[in-house]
C-alpha cells in the first residue's frame, strides 16, 4: 500500500434510509480516511440516493475504502471515477467585498468566469459559480485580492461520460427496503429466487 497521496473521486449509490450517511461517514472515520468533500442528493430512482466523495489518500487506501463501502448493506453500487471518463462540477457561493473603485473590475472578472450575481449588498456582491475544481479555485484566487467575506462550496458531483447509466441494471433487483417497496416501484422489487445476483451485492 504505497503511492502518492492524491484526491480520488468516488460516487456511491445508496438506499435512501435513516443512518445511511452515518454508516458511511463512520466507516471513513474509524479507518481514518479523510473525506475532502461530500455531496448527497436524490437520484432519478425514488429510494436511491447518490453521494460523491473526494477522498484523499494513496491508491491502496482508496481501494480499501471502496471495498469496505461495498460491504455496507445500504450501498448498492460504488463507482471509481478514475476508471472512466467523467464530468464533474462544483457550485460555489462567494461573497466578495467591493468598493466604488473595485465594483466594475470585480464584475468584469465575474463575467469572464460566467459567474452570476445572486445578491447585491452595499459593500459586497455574492456570486454563484459552477465548474470543475480548477475553475472554482481560480475564481477564488482572482477574487481574493478584493477581499472575500465568505464562501460555501458544495463539494464535487460527478457522472460518468457517455450513454450508459452508472447504476447497473441488476441493482434494480436488490432492495427490500421500505423505500423500494412502495407500489409505484415494482421494477425495484427484489427477486428473491435470484440468490446469486443478490449475493454479488454483498
Amino acid at each position, binding site marked *: 500500500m504505497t503511492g502518492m497521496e492524491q484526491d480520488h473521486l468516488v460516487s456511491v449509490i445508496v438506499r435512501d434510509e*435513516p443512518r445511511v450517511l*452515518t454508516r458511511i461517514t463512520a466507516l471513513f472515520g474509524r479507518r481514518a480516511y479523510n473525506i475532502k468533500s461530500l455531496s448527497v442528493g436524490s437520484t432519478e430512482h425514488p429510494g436511491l440516493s447518490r453521494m460523491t466523495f473526494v477522498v484523499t489518500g494513496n491508491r491502496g487506501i482508496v481501494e*480499501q475504502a471502496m471495498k469496505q463501502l461495498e460491504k455496507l448493506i445500504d450501498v448498492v453500487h460504488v463507482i471509481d471515477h478514475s476508471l472512466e471518463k467523467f464530468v464533474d462540477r462544483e457550485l460555489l457561493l462567494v461573497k466578495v467585498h467591493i468598493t466604488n473603485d473595485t465594483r466594475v473590475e470585480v464584475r468584469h472578472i465575474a463575467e469572464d468566469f460566467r459567474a452570476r450575481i445572486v445578491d447585491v449588498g452595499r459593500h459586497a456582491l455574492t456570486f454563484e459559480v459552477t465548474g470543475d475544481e480548477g475553475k472554482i479555485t481560480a475564481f477564488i484566487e482572482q477574487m481574493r485580492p478584493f477581499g472575500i467575506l465568505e464562501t460555501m462550496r458544495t463539494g464535487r458531483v460527478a457522472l460518468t461520460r457517455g450513454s450508459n447509466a452508472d447504476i447497473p441494471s441488476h441493482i434494480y433487483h436488490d432492495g*427490500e427496503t421500505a423505500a423500494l417497496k412502495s407500489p409505484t416501484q415494482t421494477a425495484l422489487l427484489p427477486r428473491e429466487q435470484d*440468490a446469486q445476483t443478490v449475493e454479488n451485492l454483498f
Partner: protein
Amino acid sequence: MTQQADMSGAKALWHTLAAHGIDTVFGYPGGAIMPVYDALTYYPDIRHILARHEQGAIHAAEGWAKATGQIGVCIATSGPGATNLVTGLADAMMDSVPLLAITGNVARHLIGTDAFQEADITGITLPITKHNYVVQDPDDLPRIVAEAIRIARSGRPGPVLVDIPKDVQLAAFGGELVAPHADPGRLAPDPQAIQAAVTLLQTAQRPVLMVGGGAQGAAAEITAFARAWQIPTVTTLMGLGAFPASDPLWLGMPGMHGSVAANRAISEADVLIGVGLRFDDRVTGRVKDFARHAQIIHVDLDAAEIGKIVRTQVSVRADAASAAQALSEAATPYVHPEWTAQIQTWKARDQQGSPTAWGAGSAVRQVVERLRPDDILSTDVGQHQMLAAQLARFEKPRRWITSGGLGTMGFGFPAAIGAALAEPQVTSVIIAGDGGFQMTAQELATLTKYRIQNVKICIINNSFLGMVRQWQELFHERRYSEVYLGDSNPDFLKLAGAYGIEGFRADSQDNLPAAIDAWLAHPGSALLEVVVPQEHGVFPMVPAGAALHEMIETEAEASQGGSK
C-alpha cells in the same frame, strides 16, 4: 404469503423465527421487550434459555452458532439490556459468527426523548454489526427479520441487530408473513484466478497452506486439497480443526503463540496460500517480514480482506470449500519431498517442547488429552486459551470455540453452554482462567436451571491475570500492576456448590489424573479447579511487533533476555 388475523407484531416475530427453523433462543426479559416474551407463550416449540446476564445470553448464542454453523439468536430489552449485548456483537463481528440480536426499544413516540431505559442501540452498534434495523412499522417485521437472517448468514457471516419499539411489538400485524430466503449458496471462484493460483503452486519448492476460521465449513475439501498436493498446513487460532491434527502435514498454529514448525514454515515458504483468514496481527507478527520469501495466494469470500494487510500475488474471491475443490480439480499435484522432510524436523522439535513440569501447560495438556474427537472444547481468553490452542489436537471442525479476534474474557463459559445445548450428546468442555471465569460465572445458574448435564468446567487457577502478568514480566520489568487475584478469588468449589454443581480440585501432578477422571465421570455438569504455580508463561511466543522468525521458543530463552 399469508395474511394473519389476530396477530401482534411480537407474534409475527416469533412466527418468522420459527419459519426459519430457529428452535432455541437465548435472552433476558425487561420492560421494553415484554410483549415479545408474552407472545413467546404462544410458541411452545421455541425453547428460550434464560441467561443471568445479557452478555451470557449472546455468548451462548455465539457458542451455539460456532458449534453448529447455524445462526445464533439472542434477545434483550432496551437500554441497559441492549448495551449488555455490545461485547458479544463486537466479538461476533470479529469472528464472523452468524448471529441475530433482537432488542426491545421504547415506544416510537418516545424514541429520541431520553425516555426511561432508552439507548440508541442502532447508533451504538453501527460499527460492530454487519447491519442493523429499527422496525418502524409492525407490518415490516417479518420482512426485516428474514432479511436480517439472510444478511447474518450470507457471504461472510456476522451479527445483525433488529431493534423493535414496544408499541410495534404490541401493534396489530396486518402485513405478510414471508417465507425464508433461499440458502445463499456457495460463491464459486473465477476459473482464471484458480488457474493463476495453480500455476504459482506448481512453481513452489516450499509451499505452505494456511487455514483460517472461514474454512471451518470446508474441512473435507481443504484436507483433500492439502493431501493431494502434500502441502504442509497450518491452522490459525480460528481455523483449528479445519485440518486434522493427526495428519503428518499439520504443523500446528502460526503466530504469536504458534508452533516453531508453523512459524518456521511460514518464514521459509516460497508460496503461501491462505484460505478463509484475514491475516490478523497476532498471526503475522511484523507484517513487513511476514512470509518474506513467499508469493501469497489469498482465498477469501470478503473482497475487502484481500490485500488489506499483506501483499497478495493471486487473489481468489470464493468460499473456502468451492475454492479448495476447484484447486484440487485444476491440475496434477506437484509434491516436494525435501520440504516435507525439513518440516518434520521442525515438528519434532515442537514435540520435545511439550510441557511436562507441573504448571498450567501440563495441566491443560492432561485435560485436552482426554478429549474425544466429538467433544467440544471452549476456552476463555488468556494463557490457558493459548495453551489449549497449542496442545489440543482436533480432528474435526467446529469442535473448538474461542474468542479469537476480540479476545473477550468471560466468553468461554456461556459459549460452552450454548454449544452444550446445541449438541447435548457430546461433552462440552470449557477451560477458563480464574479471572475470565468470574466475568460470567453467574451463568452457573443457567446450567442448574435447565439441568444441562454435559458441561465440564475446568478452571486453571494461577491466582493471576496470567497473560497480562506474562507481558509485565517480559516487557515491564516484572512490575505486576493490578493482576493478582489470589487474595480475593472465591472458593470455586463452593461457588459451584452454591448452584448445586459438583466440584473437584487438583493441585499437583500427582492428584490431577484422578481428579480429571472423577470430574469427567461425574454424571452431569461439573467443575474442576486446577491450582497451578503462579508464575508460568506461554511459549513459544513472538513478542508484539516482532517477526515470526524472531520467536522466543522457551521460558529459559525469555529469562536470558529474549525480551525486547
